[in-house]
């Protein structure tokens, strides 16, 4: 016989113990074939709940059903108890007599266990779509108005012989360019962007093992990210506004802004640094 899983065996034993009025361990031992089946229980021992008994009888011995004739089964009747008790398959039984074996009594609840808790959800249409559509329109509107007011920079044609002073990278790389004036290029130009910027950021979820997403539980992580955010913002602002010819320090209110991406953003009066 195939080996039954432990939990099924246990459930079966519990049902059996309940039906026969024996202890679960005894029933377990019987099912495992370790002990001989107990003889018919004494009336005192066999006092199962009526509905369990009737269910067991109905399942186990359909032949016996006409006898009960819809009445509550006689509690403690030895013959009934015997018919409920598991019987070895009748190999050489008398002709016309069929015996059936009670395998288990399944409790009336779902076999599958639901793990996902129900969540408070709303329909994407219209609740989310309306928010997305509104923000999409707002950004498009801002972008169109900005594009009407501000001309994208276009300086003189590229000239390999005229190096502008200063030469600046796009703003999102200016923090790195700023770092270059403090550290060796091997560090500021290569190690920091690849090791810290790329690999370090990719590794964040694998390094941060704290499972909570509550801000109060994540003070260190939030501090570190905010530090990075502020640091890169400060470096970028210094690079954009406070660096002049030769990438030396300047004050934008004295010398103007040396950043051509901002050429048309500068309010009249500040002028441009060239």
């Amino acid at each position, binding site marked *: 016989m195939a080996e039954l899983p432990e939990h099924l065996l246990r459930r079966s034993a519990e049902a059996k113990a309940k039906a026969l009025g024996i202890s679960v361990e005894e029933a377990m031992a019987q099912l495992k074939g370790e002990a001989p089946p107990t003889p018919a229980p004494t009336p005192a021992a066999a006092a199962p709940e009526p509905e369990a008994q009737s269910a067991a009888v109905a399942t186990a011995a359909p032949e016996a059903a006409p006898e009960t004739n819809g009445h509550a089964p006689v509690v403690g009747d030895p013959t009934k108890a015997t018919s409920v008790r598991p019987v070895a398959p009748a190999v050489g039984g008398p002709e016309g007599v069929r015996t059936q074996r009670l395998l288990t009594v399944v409790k009336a609840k779902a076999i599958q266990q639901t793990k996902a808790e129900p969540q*408070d*959800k709303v329909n994407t249409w219209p609740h989310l*779509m309306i928010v997305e559509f509104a*923000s999409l329109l707002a950004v498009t509107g801002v*972008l169109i108005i900005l594009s009407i007011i501000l001309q994208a920079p276009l300086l003189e*044609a*590229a000239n390999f012989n005229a190096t502008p002073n200063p030469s600046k990278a796009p703003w999102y790389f200016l923090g790195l360019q700023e770092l270059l004036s403090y550290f060796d290029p091997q560090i500021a130009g290569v190690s920091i962007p690849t090791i810290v910027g790329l690999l370090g950021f990719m590794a964040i*979820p694998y390094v941060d093992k704290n499972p*909570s997403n509550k801000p109060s539980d994540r003070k260190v992580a939030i501090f570190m990210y905010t530090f990075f955010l502020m640091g890169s913002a400060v470096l970028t602002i210094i690079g954009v506004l406070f660096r002049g010819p030769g990438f030396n320090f300047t004050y934008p209110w004295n010398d103007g802004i040396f950043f051509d991406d901002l050429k048309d953003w500068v309010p009249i009066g500040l002028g441009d640094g060239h």
Partner: protein
Amino acid sequence: MVQKLLDRVKELPSALHGSKVVDSILRPGSPMKAGYSDSPRNRSYVIMNNVLYHLHPVKVKRHGVRLSYTLCLGGLSFFLFILLTITGIFLMFYYAPTAEAAYQDIQELSTSVAFGSLVRNMHRWGAHFMVLTVFLHMSRVFYHGAYKAPREFNWVVGVVLLLLTLLLSFTGYLLPWDQLALWAVTVGTNMASFVPVFGSQVQFTLLGAVAVSADTLLRWYVLHVLFLPFIIVIFMAIHFWRVRKDGGISGPL
């Protein structure tokens, strides 16, 4: 006679609305379909039966709908990418990536092409916006702890998307072929030469020459309009798909 014709014209919208042709175009549950009624079933169909909307699940967690939770930053990044693709295709009609023509093309685009200046400005400022929204989206995800299990890998995909966004923006920076473009790219690619061991090879591969030149322009043009968009679309597909598979929006906090 004329009155009859006018009546016909007046009836046209409603006749079209329920016609077989329009009906065949709109899938069941489309809010534009004749006889659409607001019911939970139809609200599901709106999302399920539309090729674009079905990026979304039919239902989302209630807290995720609030604008203050995501600020729509991820969605706006994607929208800006689409906007940049459309404006970029428009710009491609008027631009040749050669050292002789590029600068001239940009000037003519700004002066003699209808809406040329507007579209170029939108492309440029939109690109800056996109760098900003992608970066802010990353920050939002970090502050919500949304990179934690089971979303670790999607964070990695997101970092790749940020890198690709920066590369797209930086390759586009060179294309006007003016002094700003030339020297910003020179500064940027000089850093590549400091890569240990392979520095000069890496720089040569990036530039297609030992210094920024006409070959660099062609190379960066192809990267900008074909290669990088191709790669970023693949990574975006993985990113969006994983958002759904990893359980949708994170939280609530």
